[in-house]
């Protein structure tokens, strides 16, 4: 722990965020795109925890607590939306879902 500085943790968070954004841009399966979105959110929480630890304050960690709560609710609603979309359109591929009507 002594030799690991704030910059190392921020670098890991930045690379994770870059990977997540790449996944959102590249993948066609809506479920995988959604997982990549979650990965970006997790990368942001990692940066928050690192800042919180290295500044010796608790507020960033509390913020992460709320982010985890909101992410759980968001995943439940988002997956329900994707299932409803699949029922109506029969696909979860983003390049087949380009029209608003059936």
């Amino acid at each position, binding site marked *: 722990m002594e030799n690991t500085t704030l*910059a190392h943790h921020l670098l890991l968070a*930045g690379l994770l965020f*870059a990977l*997540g954004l790449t996944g959102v841009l590249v993948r066609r399966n809506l479920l995988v795109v959604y997982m990549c979105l979650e990965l970006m959110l997790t990368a942001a929480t990692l940066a928050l925890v690192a800042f919180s630890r290295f500044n010796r304050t608790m507020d960033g960690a*509390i913020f992460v607590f709320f982010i*985890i709560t909101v992410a759980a609710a968001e995943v439940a609603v988002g997956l329900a*939306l994707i299932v409803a979309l699949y029922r109506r359109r029969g696909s979860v591929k983003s390049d087949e879902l380009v029209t608003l009507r059936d």
Partner: protein
Amino acid sequence: MPDGLFIFFAALTLGAASLLVLSRNAVTSAMGMILALVGVAADFFLLDAYFLGVLQVLVYAGAVMVLFLFVIMLLTDTAESAEAYPWKSAALGLAVFFFLAAGAIWLFVWSGAVPGTAAGATPPELSANPSEFVTAAKGFGRLLYTKYLLPLEIAGFLLLVALVGVVSLSKDPVEENA
């Protein structure tokens, strides 16, 4: 030079996240996501945020990813991997990744914008800090019921709204018309 555990878990996290992005099978992607989340939880432990690490494994790697796996196995057909690979968007994604990664490396390693202090040095503007960093879960409880009471109530209400929303979204549309 960071210590060995950090390097190990950082490599594990980044490798699993690459598996999530690159694998053409959605179930393999979900497994990579679980591994990446466990790696992030391990990093939380290395940052002395033990409560958040446990919460990450329980909520994210546990509940959320089980939900994801259920829906993936429900909706995804296994024949999809025979499709042509989207080279154009893959090139765009690779360019974006290298752009962002180079930016992150420049900002956090070379630019000197991040102070290289080890954990423990309190910055002067936080010297009168009412919420000192503690590793015990007790610290969360104390702050959640004093300084962050209103956000806590709103978070609880948000969970209720999500619950009602999911139930109303999951109702069968055919059943409604009857």
